[in-house]
């Protein structure tokens, strides 16, 4: 799976989490201010389920995962580790 496919899947998940109201219109757009903590958790759990990874406690930071590209990079780094 390449980065473009991962971004597409992340965007689909994000659309569900944010209920399509305020989905960012670009993979570099920071969406952290559009998301409360519960939505962030929902996003992370959905990402873990979709890509079959477990995100480390150190990466539990809204600022580190605030755009589609940042999440895709994280997923790629976890996939490489596995």
């Amino acid at each position, binding site marked *: 799976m390449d980065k473009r496919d991962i971004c597409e899947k992340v965007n689909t998940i994000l659309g569900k989490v944010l209920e399509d109201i305020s989905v960012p219109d670009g993979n570099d757009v920071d969406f952290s201010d559009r998301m409360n*903590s*519960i939505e962030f*958790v*929902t996003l*992370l*759990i*959905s990402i*873990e389920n979709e890509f079959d990874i477990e995100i480390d406690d150190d990466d539990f930071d809204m600022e580190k995962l605030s755009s589609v590209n940042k999440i895709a990079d994280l997923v790629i780094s976890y996939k490489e580790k596995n």
Partner: protein
Amino acid sequence: MMKDSYHRNGIVDLHMHTSESDGRDSVATVVKIAAKNKLFAIAITDHDTVSGIETALIEAKKYNLEIIPGVEFSVSYKPHIHILGLFVDYQDAELNRHLKKVTSSRMRLVTKAFRIVRNNGIDILPQQVKDDKGYVSVESLGEYLLEHQLLKNKQEMDSYLCSVWDEWKNCLPSAQECIALIHKCNGLAVLAHAKLLGLNDYELESLLVELHSYGLDGVEQIHPKHSEEDVKKLKNWTDSLGMFYSGGSDYHGKGGRDIMLSDRDEKIVPYSWVERMKAMLGKRI
């Protein structure tokens, strides 16, 4: 009627949640419904966050509604208790540092709970819990699993999630720390829904005495789950310790506790209680 006496007899609701924590309604909606219910003042008391206060203050100007900045703290105690901070300086740096830490732990532990469940062969997405329960938390996940018979009973649920609960308790402040923090940011500390703690009268009275010794200022008497008998007992204990009364609906929006206090209710919280709190704060300065 003179404006002052009208104001004094006005109804307030000092315990309300929004979608900034586990409430179903946005801050703007809660403020709008409160104004429609002819409330004079409301306290926004989301769980371990003050993120909705700024919006509430802006929205409330449209309706001439008074907003009391608040927060409902999760506190480590036997059993786990909730303490409301009312009139807190919601911009206080130490308060925000504490809340950020608790929020971060909550997020980490909710994720851990879903992971445990998934690793035990139950494939469940947060979206399913959100659609069904209205919000995503360890509690709502547990309820979902039991209600959909994905687990046999509460014991099985506890066996899955006990490590999460233990870790959660370790992240929380003690009652002493919580009350000191509330006072540090110029707020008043109020024990929330005391009768929901499952304590007998002796235990509850002892708890109030202990919390009072740490500086607890008031006790929530009016709550949807408190009976008339409960209110009487709490009033006696509160009076004997020289603390004030508080009360609210613990509003969570449709699907949760969804009845806000209003002037149509038998159980009401008068504005005079807020005035007493303000007088107490005034004496501290």
